């Protein structure tokens, strides 16, 4: 059934600490580690980028290009009408490289390459450059709302008819420097955590992660449609009163659904007991829904909700929740509606709603 206002997810490309680049497999085998940081399983970038430009290219750019290429191919789309990215911290490797060289060399003898690649829009610009895509191109950089802003813009572009296909993605890279700095702030577990135990143990801190996930969104269904993106809402912890049930009900009503229709709540549990409260409150009010989680698989980072949207789209398409992601199994019926709930440091909260097409 097609709907004039519906937005279809017609392609996926996800580079993550798990084996997620092949859409014929769905977390069958989990990369189980004992650590407080997760790194992406990277492909051979030569499969995506010619060697002459690959040599100088920053890591996040490579991750973004590979995952966007996988996504476009998955959707059978050669030229999107818009490219929209979200990244919390952008190209950290190049930023740190230019910054440390500048400090160490006392501002002498600097080469511009890492400065050029340090700007946050480099990923979307390089994707456009390699595709020769002159269309709408945007980059959002707002912490836990970076990917959500990109999705929101994509939804507006599709609904107002300015685009019929949008390549939208969220990406962040973890560097030694950014890990060390956030470790000192107490963001991460002090002892290595086991992938399968992270969400079961109670302790302060999560595990750091990274990833790049792209989606081909379209106003028409395709041969390979995964899901329908039917709602998105960002909301602020600082709003008073912060009444989660009311915010949820209003969001679901605007999206044309109700709490009873949610088959699965995919929540951003990250192993940090101090951040679990809102997820528990939400799942407590959705008694009939199953619960799944993703951050023990991807690690915590500002755009990890892109991993969650990838996982949820795959759940709808495959009609199963991977064992590694289950917190509470859903009922035996079809999984028709999934609510993704995430927050970053309990400030930037978001809901994403997807449905079976």
């Amino acid at each position: 059934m097609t709907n004039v206002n519906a937005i279809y997810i017609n392609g996926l490309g996800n580079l993550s600490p798990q084996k997620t680049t092949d859409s014929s497999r769905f977390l069958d085998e989990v990369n189980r580690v004992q650590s407080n940081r997760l790194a992406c399983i990277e492909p051979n970038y030569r499969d995506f980028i010619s060697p002459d430009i690959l040599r100088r290219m920053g890591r996040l750019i490579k991750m973004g290009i590979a995952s966007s290429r996988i996504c476009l191919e998955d959707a059978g789309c050669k030229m999107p009408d818009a490219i929209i990215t979200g990244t919390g911290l952008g190209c950290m490797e190049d930023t740190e490289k230019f910054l440390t060289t500048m400090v160490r060399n006392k501002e002498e003898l600097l080469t511009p390459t890492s400065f050029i690649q340090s700007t946050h829009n480099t990923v979307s610009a390089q994707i456009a450059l390699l595709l020769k895509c002159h269309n709408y191109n945007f980059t959002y950089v707002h912490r836990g709302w970076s990917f959500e802003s990109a999705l929101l813009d994509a939804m507006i572009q599709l609904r107002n008819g300015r685009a019929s296909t949008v390549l939208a993605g969220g990406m962040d890279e973890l560097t030694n420097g950014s890990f060390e700095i956030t470790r000192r702030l107490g963001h991460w577990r002090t002892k290595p955590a086991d992938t399968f135990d992270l969400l079961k143990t109670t302790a302060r801190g999560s595990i750091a992660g990274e990833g790049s996930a792209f989606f081909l969104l379209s106003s028409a269904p395709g041969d390979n449609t995964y899901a329908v993106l039917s709602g998105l809402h960002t909301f602020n912890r600082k709003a008073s009163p912060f009444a989660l049930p009311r915010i949820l009900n209003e969001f679901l009503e605007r999206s044309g659904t109700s709490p009873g229709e949610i088959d699965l709540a995919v929540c951003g549990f990250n192993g940090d007991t101090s951040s679990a409260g809102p997820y528990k409150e939400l799942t407590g009010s959705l008694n009939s829904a199953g619960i799944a989680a993703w951050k023990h698989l991807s690690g915590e980072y500002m755009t990890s909700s892109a991993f969650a949207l990838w996982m949820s789209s795959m759940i709808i398409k495959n009609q199963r929740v991977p064992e590694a992601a289950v917190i509470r199994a859903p009922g035996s019926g079809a999984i028709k509606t999934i609510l993704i709930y995430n927050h970053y440091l309990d400030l930037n909260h978001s809901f994403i709603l997807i449905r079976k097409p």
Partner: protein
Amino acid sequence: MPSRIFVTGLGFISGLGNNVQENLNSLLNLRSNIGPIRHIDTNLKHELAVSEVSMTSDELMRDAGLPDDSAYSRNALLGIIAAKEAFSHAKLDKHPGLNIGLISGTTVGGMDECEKYYQDFLTNDSKNRFIETYDCADSTEKIADHLGLKGFMTTISTACSSAANSIGFAARMMKAGKLDCAVAGGTESLTRFHLNGFNALKILDKFPCRPFDATRNGINLGEGAAYLVLETEETNQKTGNPVLCELVGYGNACEAFHQTASSPDGAGAYLAMKKALDMSGETPDAIDYINAHGTGTDNNDLSEGRAIEKLFTGKIPHVSSTKPFTGHMTSAAGSAEAIISILGMQQGIIWPNMNFSNPMPELKFQPAGEIIRGVDIKLVMSNSFGFGGNDSTLIFKKHGVH
């Protein structure tokens, strides 16, 4: 769905002044403050000409009544001043119940503090309070706190077109019915990081910049912040705010030519201007003034000039780059130059392209060399182009003109 977007508030801080009126006075008196670096401790101190906001960060902190031990990047401080001015101008605090969004552009974010304390972040915990001022969203969150905004907000980073894109996205959000009004613009403070980055690219001039001049030799970086209040027509009926002008077009394109350079034929600039013009429903000959991106680099001015010649096949409107006044305010340039264009429209003035004397042999047109007064300006176009080929154009129309 709302269809018209009105501008009802302005806020502006730059090297020219700390508010809209001071900026206007400097413009009217043809006063630029481009000169040696005063506030930043850099080896480039005597190598480059820049435009700095007159106050130091400590002075900005004191001026805002902030305690010494609080952590504010210069980027956030500049943003707070300009956004507050725009917010007060439109008296948005007098209209409870409005769904107000905040959309801000920035690229170097809190790098001014981070570049001082990066080693401390890695090795000791004495400066940890500055860590969370590093990312681009920090200034936006702090502006929201100071304005008491708790609804939709986001941050855009498309290099030197960030603020123009913030204004475009705010308009789309409003037209989609997701906001009643928005505070939109950008903020950027000078940092050693991007002074050295642009310097390594060899595109900075040690003398005052000369956009569209045959002898141009690069950019003078500037800093500051500028925000506009945008209201839908329906919201404007509620606020009763005087309409300063209407945002009738915004275009965004990606040149996809090179990460930092513009194509010689200006394909991206042409596309951005064309998209904005098509949205406005106006013909090229209706445009009275173009506030050009005009950075003063060899590459930009040739590329942009050729794009202007390609789009404006008949009469070319008045063109000037106002970067010789403000310096290149990078992520804040789009909203700063939007405000300069709007002030020119209000005053009936075409701002001069200062420091121009030698026409470029490649171009058929010349920028406005002198200030031109008494011009009936109905439509202005403002260009902002960034690294990554992220090119954007805004078009503003005088209110009540058909």
